[in-house]
């Protein structure tokens, strides 16, 4: 017999097998011995590492520090070290379903001694997969909706400012406003269209008005920032959206750009500059904290509740902002802020980043529970009655997760909503 081949036929099948009274005789009880690694495939590592942005994939020396902090591994079997080994032993990441599980939360990068950067690697490989047409269906739909409608929710572009009609305070739209503003507020897709996102947008409008902020929004001239689509592999779509938004930003006079969402913050601070945008941006928590002295006396009504705060990956790890949201929460009278074990730099991921927002069904086939469900269970375990968030992806994700895990009592509220409640009672 040829050397080594003795392992190939190592298949076990009992003639009769009854487990817990169930007869599983036949092929049902067939077991294979551990699969032999016949071939190492360093070329599949090179295939990733040779892409611009993919270089650091080849640097992994298998220390495995990334695994315990990988939010996907916590509900499944995942992480950069494992992806490296899979590539080394025959998995073409370009064609693998594993490609779509990473949320680019960057917690692996935080602890990586070799600076293996999945935030660069993932979009690099996904871009190729998109070009090859290897994209999960539901993600493809989000891409198509974004391309067609300017937002991943598939809602009409002209209706982007429809939410302002519900506002009991003025929300100036730049095109009609006809004059410079101090603050240009980039609302974002979910706060513009999603019912729970609109709640946060309305709250923001009231807070801005109460503070006497001279602000305006782009309304129908605003399109999705596209950064999450870029991280999910659609760099062409991203560039198209970015060029549009940059043109709109440049069309009007303003001093400060304020965003509702951390993903937009990432787009405008880190990615748009590569396309010529030379202004900065602030997340709303960073902006409001600058007005805290003025805001504090307005927060008259107590919110008597135990509240925990979920750090958005793209506000915390990606932009280093941990304090502004907490300062706002602490300014609310009656509110008791408790920290979850995984918070700040080690905050757990909601599962929405890097395209995860549009891959929930796909991801479910690879995980024991949703990342958002895992997070909700942690919030409940720490005694939270309210889970406070400040990323528009999160309200709907966590509300669904609270329901699906039987924790309806847990309220999920944007910090904007909490501030607004405290102001208005």
């Amino acid at each position, binding site marked *: 017999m*040829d*050397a*080594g081949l003795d*392992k190939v036929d190592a298949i076990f099948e009992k003639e009769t097998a009854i487990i817990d009274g169930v007869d599983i005789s036949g092929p049902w009880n067939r077991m294979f011995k*551990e*699969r*032999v*690694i*016949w*071939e*190492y495939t*360093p070329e599949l*590592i*090179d295939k990733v*590492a040779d892409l611009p942005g993919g270089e650091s994939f*080849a*640097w992994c*020396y*298998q220390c495995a520090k990334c695994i315990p902090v990988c939010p996907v591994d916590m509900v499944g079997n995942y992480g950069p070290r494992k992806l490296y*080994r899979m590539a*080394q*032993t025959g998995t073409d990441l370009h064609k693998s379903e594993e490609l779509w599980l990473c949320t680019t939360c960057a917690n692996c990068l935080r602890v990586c001694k070799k600076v293996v950067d999945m935030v660069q690697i993932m979009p690099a490989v996904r871009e190729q997969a998109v070009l090859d047409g290897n994209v999960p269906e539901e993600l493809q739909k989000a891409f198509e909706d974004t391309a067609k409608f300017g937002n991943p929710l598939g809602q009409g572009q002209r209706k982007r400012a429809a939410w302002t009609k519900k506002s009991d305070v003025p929300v100036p739209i730049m095109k009609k406003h006809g004059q410079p503003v101090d603050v240009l507020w980039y609302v974002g897709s979910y706060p513009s269209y999603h019912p729970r996102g609109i709640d946060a947008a309305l709250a923001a409008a009231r807070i801005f008005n109460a503070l006497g902020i001279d602000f305006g929004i782009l309304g129908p001239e605003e399109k999705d920032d596209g950064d999450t689509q870029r991280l999910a592999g659609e760099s062409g779509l991203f560039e198209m959206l970015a060029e549009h938004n940059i043109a709109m930003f440049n069309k009007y006079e303003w001093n400060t750009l304020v965003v509702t969402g951390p993903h937009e913050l990432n787009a405008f601070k880190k990615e748009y500059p590569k396309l010529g945008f030379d202004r900065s941006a602030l997340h709303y928590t960073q902006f409001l904290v600058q007005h805290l002295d003025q805001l504090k006396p307005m927060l008259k009504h107590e919110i008597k509740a135990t509240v925990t705060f979920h750090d958005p990956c793209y506000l915390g790890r990606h932009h280093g902002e941990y304090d502004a949201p907490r300062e706002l929460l602490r300014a609310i009278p009656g509110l008791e802020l408790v920290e979850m074990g995984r918070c700040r730099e080690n905050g757990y991921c909601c599962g929405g980043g890097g395209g995860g927002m549009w891959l929930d069904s796909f991801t479910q086939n690879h995980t024991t529970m949703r990342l958002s469900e895992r997070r909700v269970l942690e919030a409940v375990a720490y005694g939270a009655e309210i889970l406070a968030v400040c990323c528009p992806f999160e309200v709907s994700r966590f509300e669904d997760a609270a329901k699906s895990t039987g924790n309806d009592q847990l309220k999920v509220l944007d910090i904007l909503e909490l501030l607004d409640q405290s102001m208005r009672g």
Partner: protein
Amino acid sequence: MSEKVLIIGAGPAGLEAARTVADLGYTAVMVEKRDRVGGTPDEFHYAQLTHHFRDSEEAMNELAAAATASANVELLTSSQVAALEGEVGNLTATIQNGSGSKNIEAGAVILATGFQHFDPGRETQYYNYYSFPDVITIADLEGMLKAHQVVRPSTGQPPERVAFIQCVGSRDRQIGNEFCSKVCCGIASKQAIEIRQQLPDSRVMIFYIDMRMYGYWENELYWPAQEQYRVNYVKGLVSEILPKGDRLLVRGEDTTMGRPMEVVLDLVVLSVGMEPSAGTRAMAATLNIEQNKYGFVAAGGSTRIDPVATSRPGIFVVGAASGPADLDDTFSSAGLAAARAIAAIRRAG
């Protein structure tokens, strides 16, 4: 009373010790068994030095020239020390060569007899080294790299797929070499880089227990090997090598995958460790100094913390004669031993 320092062995350690003794204004007599200086790097035609990537021959020639050009250094090649009598400051060595023997007076002795590469054929016929031509050692590979002739010995053709197996003859209770040979992880990584430079189409793997890259070897050897030269490191040692047609099948367990592995290769390089050289063993007996259980000269002296002291006052040990050492270790200990030897002579006087 003699102010001469007798240096036994003219490899890197002996040459550096002689140069330092001479530079400090004292006289060194170097006794070398071979008919030329340069030691193991010369004998085994080392290509580039680990970790500096300097051409070995060029660097050794510079060192030899610096040592032997000095009027304060006397070189006796094809010679061996047959006996050593007396006390520190007042020693008499009997030197033998092909034509007879003579006595040399010395105040102190520096032993620089180095190591030998572990012989993978010893006792166990490890990995079929003596039966499969395409199983070679890192020492064999040095010569191939130097000649820019990295080939499968069985065919004379360049290999497409090469793998290193680490810790051959080291960290092994059965063989008796329980120690880590310290340099092989770095040397394998250096050689992997050189193979990839000389044969860009080749694939190189390294099977290891754990990579031991102390200090700058991590960033000067391991990281470039993996990141720039795409050398594949797989944790788990190969247990057996079997013939597979005209190629080799290596079998082991990939421990991070928890799966068996069976990989076909063209050339397997055994990262053999260090053992005390025959000269080190013989000289330790002749000079009547203690050896450790592995046969290296026991260093440490009465304080146990002096790396160049032996059990006999006035006799110092340098380089790999006292245990696995890289060139940095060797140069450090050579300089220290030169200073200690001169200090011992001055105190004795």
